[in-house]
């Protein structure tokens, strides 16, 4: 079991104060804080090992290459990839999804084909597909949300026919916390021969994920949402699919030969990693994976279940507060969106921040289609991670009561 109060000490930012008020960080779905081990791995890399990778005949460059490639092995291990060559380092989830849209979907789809999404997708898993649709003539089809904030699977069979070539679904909603029905959608998609992409930006950080067991085709995630640095994330894909995909970017490192008018590509993963890669970031990503593996992903999930249950209970004590998301912690992760009476989310965020040092996000959370569906222009969102303690939730609740006072709500 995770002892969040103890591991907090590994996270220097959590010691921040505004004057007398300690910071209460409840915005981990946007980006997580970093343990010292990650911050130090990056500094140590720059202080002791920094060199460009893959082309050095000297020892330092060899050390740098080993550091970079062993990060890949760690990331591959976390998601149980068959081979580390199936892990492509990208700038993040958004870059990974766009790579798939531009080089997988563009070649696969034509007029009349369909892409299946859900209404709970993040903009990063919507906009790339809108652009694919515009380029190829394919259509987007959305699965609905039920009144209890789940993906509506009732129409799945109806919607999934052989026109659907790609199903792309969030593993976990960054707004409602809802765990996506990846299993059901994958089975149904397989039956009609569609490929399955999972936007794992919120899933991979929060639960054990095994790509071989999931039986999906592609998985994308971002290091910065799982204790790692900004500027790096990963695309995992089945080797044979990645082998068949054309590179998006050309340049150094991704070739075996360059002529004046033609070039030959290196094998995966390098084919998709043109130019100097985010080396120090990969090292930091590897350290983040080490930290999570040490905690144990089962325990990470167990802690999230506990803290989310506690949060939902405490929020239920606040009058006039509406939670947009499942009430059952087993069906969700620790991103909790809510609205309080007629107080706009933005005002709520200011009051929580100023009164209690509580950092929550306010707005559309890069999920405008979902917000329109929920008929709410903006929500406030508190989101948790391995270092979140019940006291953080208590501060949130005090702040919410104070907001009621300030807005003169009896």
């Amino acid at each position, binding site marked *: 079991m995770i002892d969040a109060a103890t591991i907090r000490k590994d996270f220097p930012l959590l010691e921040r104060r505004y004057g007398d008020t300690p910071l209460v960080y409840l915005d981990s779905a946007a980006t997580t804080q970093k343990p010292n081990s990650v911050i130090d791995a990056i500094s140590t890399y720059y202080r002791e090992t920094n060199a460009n990778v893959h082309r050095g005949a000297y020892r330092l460059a060899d050390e740098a290459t080993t550091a970079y490639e062993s990060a890949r092995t760690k990331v591959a291990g976390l998601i149980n990839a068959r081979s580390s060559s199936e892990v492509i380092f990208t700038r993040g989830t958004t870059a990974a999804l766009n790579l798939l849209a531009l080089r997988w979907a563009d070649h696969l789809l034509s007029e009349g084909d369909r892409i299946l999404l859900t209404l709970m997708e993040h903009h990063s898993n919507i906009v790339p597909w809108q652009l694919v649709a515009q380029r190829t003539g394919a259509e987007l089809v959305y699965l609905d949300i039920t009144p209890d904030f789940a993906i509506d699977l009732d129409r799945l069979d109806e919607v999934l026919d052989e026109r659907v070539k790609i199903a792309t679904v969030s593993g976990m909603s960054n707004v409602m916390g809802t765990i996506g029905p990846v299993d059901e959608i994958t089975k149904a998609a397989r039956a009609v021969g569609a490929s399955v992409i999972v936007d794992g930006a919120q899933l991979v950080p929060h639960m054990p994920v095994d790509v071989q067991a999931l039986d999906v085709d592609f998985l994308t995630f971002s290091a910065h949402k799982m204790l790692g640095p900004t500027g790096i994330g990963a695309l995992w894909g089945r080797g044979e699919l990645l082998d068949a995909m054309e590179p998006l970017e050309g340049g150094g490192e991704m070739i075996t030969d360059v002529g004046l008018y033609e070039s030959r590509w290196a094998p995966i993963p390098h084919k998709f990693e043109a130019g100097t890669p985010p080396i120090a970031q990969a090292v930091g990503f590897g350290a983040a994976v080490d930290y999570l593996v040490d905690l144990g992903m089962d325990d990470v999930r167990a802690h999230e279940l506990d803290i989310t249950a506690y949060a939902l209970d405490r929020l239920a004590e606040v009058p006039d507060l509406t939670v947009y998301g499942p009430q059952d912690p087993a069906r969700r992760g620790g991103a909790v969106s809510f609205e309080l009476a007629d107080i706009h989310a933005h005002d709520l965020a*200011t009051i929580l921040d100023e009164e209690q040092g509580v950092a929550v996000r306010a707005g559309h959370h890069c999920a405008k289609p979902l917000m329109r569906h929920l008929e709410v222009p903006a929500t406030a969102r508190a989101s948790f991670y391995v270092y979140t303690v019940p006291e953080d939730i208590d501060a949130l609740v005090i702040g919410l009561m104070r907001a009621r006072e300030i807005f003169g709500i009896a």
Partner: protein
Amino acid sequence: MSLQELYREVILDHYRNPRHRGHLPSPDVHAEGENPSCGDEFSLDLDVDGQTVAAIATQGQGCSISQASGSMMAEAVVGKSLDEIHELTSRFKRMMSIEEGESPVDEERPGSVLGDLEALQGVRRFPVRIKCADLPWTTLEDAIRRVEQGSEVLP
């Protein structure tokens, strides 16, 4: 300064009971504004009679600061000449940009030109929120510019 001063009663009142809400039947000009970073939206219809804003109606949704600012602005500009509105806009922007602690922008109190709008002074201490207060004014400037250019007086 405390949050209590940011969220003054007059602001909450304008937020909850925005003045001049709605649409004009056939406005001379319509302008829309948005803060992409927080999602606040504000739009307005104007009827302009010669050089005077004869009527205004506003729409929008967003935080109390943006919506109250819009409501106060609507009250302040109706019946004013375009020149007076330019003057008012620049006074407002000056008020929002001066350092906290400096003297209030309007030396002529009581009988302040900015009136209720001065209640928004408190926003200055919250830099993230200044753009909320500014949104309606930026939208208004856009509308007035179009009136002056004669480019978009609706039929």
